[in-house]
């Protein structure tokens, strides 16, 4: 049935600019691609690369103040340039479906999912109210939502993350558009749910839908994409067959992205490269020149001409034949993975959690958890949302009291103590949060944020300022940033400030709760490297909590796997990842996407339940 090889979407020289106070931002600066029925093109890039703007421009929703221009912009013979509002409304939902990230806010929280699906139907053909409802049930069944007859009347907050995403996909596909654009469709989801949604999209593709997949994650698209376009600074810096891009990347940015994915790297190697310092690139220059290890002066001045590496594999870089710099030497012996011969050889225990249970009134959030963290080591805690990871972090930080069980910190009792007795020890166990912006007072400048944690009285201002500068340098920031507000910093810089603040009281233990989860993969790589460096230099013990198996694998010595409040598996990280014992750990590892998936038979990985 799929009329494949029929080109549905042709885009040439797409440009999108935004008017902003005092100038213009070119978000998309000349992008070319085609998309055929039954084909999947993935656009991969980090935040600000212009990938979402590209997707939205295709449905005429680039945003207020946007000006869209193109040499060609055709949807199955229809020239999209300059069509009126009425025609756009027929295209949207009718001929191009759009699925956005984060279904919780993309479904109207005040309306039932049946009403949301019905709206698409009403806009494109319609039928009576009863017919639309019956069709909505049908569509929900097609996306494998359990009990569709009942759930059609539910609101988005009553569904789980994966169910919500299924409902959103059903609403976008209700009018059978031949083209589906999915913008980060799995980003907020747990890894097993992510695999199910990817399978669902793969089934749509196999049924003949042309799929444009937008993602920041090369590993996610590996499973689905036929072709990949890597976007940076509003341009496709590399475009080609998925296999070519993932196995034989040519552009320095693509190569950095692939190196930065923690899953694929053996432990103990660095994820990030130090760029060669140089002046910022000019308007025609390569946007990646500022971070590129191969950048030459000609890259910064431009113009850059696309190079055809092989048929269908274009690279926007003149220096692909330059030798790639050797990765920095693997990190020297991190706390030796002491094979336990006797308790005496082990470093001292800094956190000892014994049989801790905590409930918020309902079923327990943490059930009889026990773990031990030793000085200078990293214990990874991995699990999906709702598994009790964050509750465990709060218990260890002494911000929640356990219902049962005990916690000891640095050999001293920690739980069930009056706060007055705990306060003296508080400085020695510190938190690095997921969202530093939310954890900083928005009115404070960076210097004050750190000074607060130093607790040095005002008379020592000179010494305090030296300490702040020292801490900022330690986390790889310019001390002059002390005068900035956190809002003026990038995500990576903010996370470094959060780490500097945590280090201010010279702690022995850092509790990192999803500390790199909100970051772009190349920034995440730098922060992970920073953690490793700090651990080596300061002998820190890390309790590293994450849903990301790759990150946990990369940074941990030992790992515990949590599921529904319980620790289901524990052990040295290599043992757990190479020969998992618990079926849940096995399921997690199977569902984990990896760039190498492109080499596998693209069969379904997880069956929806």
């Amino acid at each position, binding site marked *: 049935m799929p009329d494949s090889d029929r080109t549905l979407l042709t885009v040439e020289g797409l440009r999108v600019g935004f008017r902003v106070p005092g100038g213009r931002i070119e978000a998309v600066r000349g992008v070319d691609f085609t998309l055929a029925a039954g084909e999947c093109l993935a656009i991969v890039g980090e935040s600000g690369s212009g990938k979402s703007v590209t997707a939205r421009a295709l449905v005429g929703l680039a945003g207020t103040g946007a000006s869209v221009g193109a040499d060609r912009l055709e949807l199955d013979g229809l020239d999209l340039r300059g069509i009126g509002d009425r025609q756009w409304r027929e295209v949207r939902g009718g001929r191009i479906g759009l699925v*956005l990230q984060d279904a919780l*806010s*993309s*479904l*109207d*929280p005040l309306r039932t999912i049946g009403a949301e699906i019905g709206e698409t139907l009403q*806009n494109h053909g319609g039928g009576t109210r009863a017919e639309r409802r019956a069709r909505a049930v049908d569509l929900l069944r097609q996306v494998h939502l359990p009990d569709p007859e009942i759930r059609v009347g539910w*609101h988005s907050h009553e569904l789980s993350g994966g169910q919500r995403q299924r409902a959103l996909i059903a609403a976008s596909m209700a009018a059978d558009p031949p083209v589906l654009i999915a913008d980060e469709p799995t980003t907020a989801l747990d890894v097993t749910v992510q695999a199910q949604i990817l399978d669902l999209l793969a089934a749509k593709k196999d049924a003949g839908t042309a799929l444009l997949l937008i993602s920041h994650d090369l590993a996610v698209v590996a499973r689905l994409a036929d072709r990949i376009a890597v976007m940076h600074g509003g341009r496709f810096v590399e475009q080609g067959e998925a296999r070519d891009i993932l196995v034989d990347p040519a552009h320095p940015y693509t190569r950095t992205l692939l190196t930065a994915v923690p899953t694929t790297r053996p432990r103990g190697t660095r994820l990030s490269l130090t760029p060669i310092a140089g002046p910022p690139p000019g308007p025609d220059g390569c946007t990646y020149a500022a971070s590129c290890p191969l950048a030459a002066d000609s890259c910064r001045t431009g113009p850059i001409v696309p190079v055809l590496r092989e048929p269908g594999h274009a690279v926007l870089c003149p220096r692909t034949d330059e030798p790639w710099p050797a990765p920095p030497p693997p990190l020297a012996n991190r706390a030796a993975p002491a094979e336990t011969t006797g308790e005496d050889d082990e470093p001292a225990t800094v956190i000892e959690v014994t049989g801790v249970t905590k409930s918020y009134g309902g079923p327990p959030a943490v059930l009889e958890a026990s773990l031990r963290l030793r000085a200078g080591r990293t214990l990874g805690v991995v699990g999906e949302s709702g598994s009790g990871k964050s509750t465990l972090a709060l218990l260890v930080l002494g911000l929640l009291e356990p219902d049962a069980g005990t916690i000891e910190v640095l050999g001293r009792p920690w739980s069930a103590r009056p706060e007055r007795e705990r306060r003296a020890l508080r400085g020695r166990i510190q938190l690095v949060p997921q969202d530093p912006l939310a954890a900083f007072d928005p009115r404070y400048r960076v210097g004050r944020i750190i000074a607060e944690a130093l607790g040095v009285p005002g008379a020592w201002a000179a010494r305090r300022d030296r300490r702040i500068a020292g801490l900022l340098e330690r986390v790889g920031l310019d001390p002059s940033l002390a005068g900035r507000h956190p809002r003026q910093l990038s995500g990576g810089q903010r996370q470094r400030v959060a780490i500097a603040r945590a280090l201010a009281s010279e702690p022995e233990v850092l509790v990192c709760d999803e500390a790199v989860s909100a970051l772009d993969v190349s920034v995440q790589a730098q922060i992970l490297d920073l953690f490793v460096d700090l651990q080596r230099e300061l002998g820190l013990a890390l309790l590293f909590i994450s849903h990301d198996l790759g990150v946990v694998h990369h940074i941990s010595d030992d790992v515990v796997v949590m599921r529904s409040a319980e620790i289901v598996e524990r052990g040295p990280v290599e043992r757990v990842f190479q020969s998992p014992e618990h079926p849940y750990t096995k399921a997690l590892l199977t569902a984990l996407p990896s760039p190498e998936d492109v080499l596998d038979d693209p069969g379904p990985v997880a069956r929806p339940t």
Partner: protein
Amino acid sequence: MPATLRWLGRRLILAAFVVFGAATAAFAAMNLMPGDPVLTILGSTNPTPALIAQVRSDLGYDEPFAVRYAEFLGRLVHGDLGQSYQLREPVTEVITGQLLPTAELALTAFVLALAVAAVLAVTTAGRRPAVRRVVSALELLTTSSPGFWIGILLLTFLSFRIHLFPAAGGDGVNGLVLPAITLALGMTGVFSQVLRAGLERALEEPYALTARARGTGETAVRTRHALRHALIPVLTLSGWALGTLLSGAVVVETVFGRRGIGRVMATAVIGRDVPTVTGVVIVSAVFFTLINILVDGLYRVIDPRLRQEKA
């Protein structure tokens, strides 16, 4: 719906406390005011001491404060608000007779204000800055203008000049138009500013973008999706708004010579008619709490997330 019933029960018990508090405050205020109510009632007749003592004993003012308070509460529980000094009839009858015209006026004004505000907000939210600014300035002007002044202006032009509407009285729809407009004008500006801010916030949300990506037209995105979200803060305001309308009714009913609770209240305060004032305060308190329960109930209708009981 046991959660909703439990919620309603809790709210009704709380409401009873609020009404009790209002009754006590009104009673205390009227009794603690300087001046002797008995002398005020007797007025300029230059009464004899015997007459004064007689009236004082009739009204129960010879009893100590605590006893009078207890008696007042006792009557209140039985729904008796006492006898009006001025009108010489039961306060309950005075109030019930005048309640309907005022309710009619306040509700008409409220609906009018909300409807006009919704139209203004939906048509101007996030649209051309020039239009938006002009409308916004007009709203500010009407909200800041005193109601009696607007009422007099309306009377001057629409009644005395072109005889479109009656200047006073007129219990039908005709007589309702000018007072309702006068009362609604101030409210419209507030509602439409709040609605517009809410709409502009909602239109930036991902669900609005998703709705557009389904091929939904701009008007439908505004009315079907964004407006419901924008109505939530207006709902919060409407409890306050109905109270304001009630006190606005005092002025408007006087300017337009309409019957109503507002006028009863105005005359009673001037005449130190203690039972009437206290009675109006208690009835208003009952209305207020009921409206607030209704408002909170409407939240749960508009926003399904509130129907779940908090953990």
